């Protein structure tokens, strides 16, 4: 500091106040980052501790008993778990070709770029429609429109267990379709982002060696973008598994198990939305147990999604 001749160029000693502010700011930032961990841990612990009573009483049987009866105080979540998995998986299977197809439409230069830009913006903006509004639309517009079609399905294919009941309004099938509508923008926008990131030279090289447009798309561009697309699909699956409002409004919230997708069904999140407010005693604990199952499922899907994006991504 005061080395005599070099005093002119000496480093300024940082005042205590400045150091205090600097250190303090860093600590505040660390604390705020830790809040994420605290909240995550808190969610896990609160739901786990809430469900302990029910876990002790039913154990793993909870997952395989389909009877949910607040009157006799017997709870099993099979109907809801089955509904959650079936509705989400069916929705994702329908949504993948539609979503990835739309993403190809938007990114590859098949159509004029203005049309593709407008379409891309539209998809992004439509993703902002809240799920409760989709639910409202499903109740008053989609379901009445769909019922004759589902009825036809029942009369023609009633011998298949999945179509064995006559549609009575709300049910699993309309819930699946509204889930498709809900997750399509997610799959489309993530697939589009990963398709855009495929380097232009890959496309040019493909065309250069004489590939047709679709050979290039199917053999070169899609494989190059597959990690992002797969990650997006899994994120959408996670969203579908946890989606509450639209499904609650249209699935019928039946507590009875049925193989038929035309019959009313239930999902874990729909059950929570319906019963949590008015539940007490061991019903709360059972609902917490169901919430815990939902959390484990979505956690698993999300971890796999992150892992896939990390491991599968090709580096260019």
């Amino acid at each position, binding site marked *: 500091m005061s080395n005599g001749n070099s005093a002119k160029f000496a480093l300024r000693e940082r005042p205590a106040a400045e150091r205090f502010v600097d250190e303090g700011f860093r600590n505040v930032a660390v604390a705020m980052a830790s809040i994420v961990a605290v909240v995550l841990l808190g969610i896990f612990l609160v739901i786990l501790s809430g469900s302990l009573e029910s876990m002790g009483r039913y154990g793993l049987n909870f997952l395989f008993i389909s009877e949910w009866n607040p009157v006799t105080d017997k709870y099993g979540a099979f109907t809801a778990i089955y509904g959650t998995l079936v509705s989400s998986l069916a929705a994702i299977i329908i949504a993948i070709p539609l979503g990835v197809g739309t993403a190809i439409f938007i990114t590859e230069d098949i159509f004029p770029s203005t049309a593709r830009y407008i379409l891309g913006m539209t998809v992004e903006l439509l993703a902002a*429609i809240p799920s409760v509004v989709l639910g409202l639309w499903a109740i*008053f517009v989609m379901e009445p429109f769909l019922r004759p079609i589902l009825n036809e399905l029942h009369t023609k294919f009633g011998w298949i267990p999945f179509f064995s009941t006559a549609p009575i309004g709300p049910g699993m099938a309309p819930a699946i379709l509204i889930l498709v509508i809900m997750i399509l923008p997610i799959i489309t926008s993530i697939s589009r982002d990963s398709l855009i990131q495929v380097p232009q030279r890959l496309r040019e090289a493909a065309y250069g060696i004489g590939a047709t447009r679709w050979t290039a798309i199917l053999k070169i561009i899609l494989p190059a973008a597959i990690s992002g697309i797969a990650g997006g699909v899994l994120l959408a699956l996670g969203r579908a598994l946890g989606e509450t409002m639209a499904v609650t409004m249209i699935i019928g919230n039946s507590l009875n198990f049925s193989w038929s997708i035309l019959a009313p069904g239930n999902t874990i999140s729909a059950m929570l939305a319906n019963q949590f407010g008015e539940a007490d005693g061991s019903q709360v604990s059972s609902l917490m147990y169901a919430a815990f199952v939902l959390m484990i499922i979505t956690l698993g899907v999300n971890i796999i999604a992150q892992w896939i994006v990390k491991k599968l991504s090709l580096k260019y």
Partner: protein
Amino acid sequence: MDSKETQFKVLSFIMYKSKNTKSLKNILLYDPTSYSSIINKLLTLIVTIFTATAILPLILVLSYVVIRGSEQLNLNLLTQLPQPPGDDLYSGGIGNAICGTFIVTGIAATIAIPIGIGGGIYLAEYSKQGHFSKFIRFGTNILAGVPSIISGVFVYGTIVSTKIIFGSNFSALAGGIALSILMLPTVIKTTDEGLKLVSDDLRKGSLSVGASRFITITKVTLPAAINPISTGILLSIARAAGETAPLIFTALFSFYWSNSPQSLLEPIASLSVLIYNFALEPYQAQNELAWAASFILVFILLLLNIFARWLGRLSR
């Protein structure tokens, strides 16, 4: 057109140079009846159909909301209280729900934005790829995937059922906290990514002229990244404002105005919960009100989204 012309020129040049024109014709001329041309056209057609199928329902939802919602647009709708469901045809307005949505979303933003920006600053500016920052990044992604209803269950378990905030159970504050949990990961991620886009030269320049870490971040890097960060924050606010699931058993619903500081500790109305409750009522007057509320909600959310995207494009 252009490429075909060049193709033709190249072709005629080659034909002029070469004697064996017949085989060259077969190689280079585009043949619309060839197998691969037909396959290409077919695939293009399929993608177009997929895109139309994907986008049509979303357009339909939007048009129904606009048509059925705007029918009832008048001053009473925006300023009156909703009438409890019953026999009469007059259903009142949604004034308190509009205010409620702003209040609850405002509470959520007040909590999530400072914490999220702080956490993002830590990840982008301070962390050194250690275990802690990896864990926080992972936790942020996991928290983003937690179903929204789970955050409602968490807040119900920690705040509503324990009456920890001044002995009140269902309250605007509890609803705001539940929404802030959903906003938090998005705010952290956009802050982190926005700050990472800031050139390191700026950071080094600022530090080398003697600015402290605190000044560098608050006066140099954060202002440089303000556009992408505010875009992300606005989008997360828009998403939170449309959420219903975390509110149905934390903020509940109210048929009255929430106009005193005291009412933050009482149940509060919101547009999304109003849509959910009134869509399931058997009375037509209430259903109409749900459509009107959908119109207002979608209108607000689309405005927020368009504004956010406009802000995001400014920075490019």
